[in-house]
């Protein structure tokens, strides 16, 4: 009899591609140095009589071992996913595992809106000649097909959507897949959500995206938890983590990055984008209960922290009410921007790499914290050996998720 249900899964591999660079080393170095890449968005299809701010992946390259046919038939978000998955795959040495025991859960939906808009513009007057490939590629699940084909994954593969909580939702689904014995290893990916000018404008019109206040100072626009924040700033990113059962890791004699002590999902029953204090308190209490931890055993918090005026305020109140105001806290999005569907996993990668380096990264532009009594990491990185971390994600449509990780260093 297996004991999947008795043990907590671990994380054995990391892949990251973001506007801070390609790969773990570039990401970790930039985070700890407090470097960012904010500016005016330049990728084709991002602006129309506008000057939206954000951070884009610089100098992205798809390695030569992906064939020219793959190169031709893939979107930007597809290619970023392949590179990210490749890094996680190698990091976790997945070539050792039977591919029938490997799964993939991709968090997010609407991965390639920018490129779809370009296709609509190109074919609006000649629909009869739309490329047949579009009949497959417009579906997000095409990314599952692409990744499973390229890496030979045969366990399971599907997408899960939870707006900006999609990344964490993918991790939680991957945990379930392992705990029910469907697979021994499950990769959770937060896919790059490639926004076009229509999505950017809609986020702006909705009041979710900043920055009117820093329209001419892109470097100052992204400022989670600062008194002068005025909304999130978009940042291209994609992350992947390899979740594995303890039995599988023992057989492979691999040292995991971290153990996932707890996970939780709580719904607000709300279609709208507004946060819920009650929902956030509930998800924090749920995850601590699942992890069997008291608040004072958490020594580091990676919050959702987007820079939303109401969102950040609500999150701080919820953390405070749950007795979590003394742990160290920083905001990864202050450096990466908001990766939307990718954010939950990108931030877990940030937690793992901070565990690895025994340092905490600074929070960019946090000059006047909305709650000064919290233990902020502000201008410079600091030395700290994370023991147990809490990470939160919240998404439009009333979804709250949380994860607790324990350092396996």
């Amino acid at each position, binding site marked *: 009899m297996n004991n999947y249900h008795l043990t907590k899964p671990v994380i054995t591999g990391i892949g990251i591609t973001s506007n801070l660079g390609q790969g773990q080393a570039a990401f970790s170095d930039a985070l700890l140095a407090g470097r960012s890449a904010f500016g005016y968005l330049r990728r084709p299809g991002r602006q129309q009589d506008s000057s939206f701010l954000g951070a884009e992946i610089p100098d992205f390259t798809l390695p030569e071992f992906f064939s020219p046919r793959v190169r031709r038939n893939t979107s930007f978000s597809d290619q970023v996913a392949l590179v990210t998955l490749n890094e996680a795959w190698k990091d976790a040495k997945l070539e050792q595992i039977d591919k029938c025991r490997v799964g993939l859960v991709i968090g997010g939906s609407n991965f390639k809106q920018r490129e779809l808009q370009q296709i609509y513009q190109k074919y609006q007057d000649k629909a009869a000649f739309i490329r*047949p490939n579009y009949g497959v590629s417009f579906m997000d699940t095409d990314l599952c097909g692409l990744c499973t084909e390229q890496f030979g994954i045969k366990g399971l593969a599907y997408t899960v959507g939870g707006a900006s909580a999609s990344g964490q939702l993918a991790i939680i689904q991957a945990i379930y897949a392992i705990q029910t014995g469907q697979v021994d290893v499950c990769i959770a990916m937060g896919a790059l959500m490639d926004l076009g000018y229509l999505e950017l404008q809609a986020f702006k019109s909705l009041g979710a995206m900043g920055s009117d206040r820093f329209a001419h100072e892109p470097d100052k626009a992204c400022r989670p938890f600062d008194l002068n924040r005025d909304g999130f700033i978009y940042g291209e990113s994609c992350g992947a983590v390899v979740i594995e059962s303890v039995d599988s890791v023992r057989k492979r004699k691999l040292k995991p990055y971290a153990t996932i002590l707890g996970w939780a999902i709580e719904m607000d029953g709300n279609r709208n984008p507004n946060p819920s204090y009650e929902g956030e308190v509930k998800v924090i209490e749920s995850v601590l209960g699942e992890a069997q931890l008291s608040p004072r055993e958490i020594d580091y918090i990676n919050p959702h922290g987007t820079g939303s005026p109401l969102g950040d305020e609500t999150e701080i109140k919820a953390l405070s009410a749950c007795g979590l105001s003394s742990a160290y806290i920083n905001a990864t999005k202050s450096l990466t921007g908001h990766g939307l569907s990718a954010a939950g996993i990108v931030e877990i990668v940030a937690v793992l790499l901070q565990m690895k380096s025994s340092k905490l990264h600074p929070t960019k532009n946090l000059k006047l914290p909305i709650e000064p009594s919290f233990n902020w990491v502000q201008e410079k990185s600091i030395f700290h050996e994370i023991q147990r971390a809490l990470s939160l994600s919240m998404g439009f449509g009333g979804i709250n998720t949380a994860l607790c990780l324990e350092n396996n260093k």
Partner: protein
Amino acid sequence: MDKEKIFQIVVNHTREVLPELVERKIECSDSLRDLGANSIDRAEVVTLTLESLSMNIPRTALFGANNIGELVGLIYEQLPSD
């Protein structure tokens, strides 16, 4: 438009869809399937060819071709007479 010109258009789009064929000589007797084209690839070659020829015809009119030569013949039959 003669058959040779249509053949060249089909070959160009075949190379576009299957970039690994860049060095390979393509003949009328070659079938797209044997060249490595899957069902999506074959549909792509046909659609790109029809777009190049500005021919909006039902795809069923092109069913049944066993090789590129036969595909060219079916397309040729559908050309508007001028």
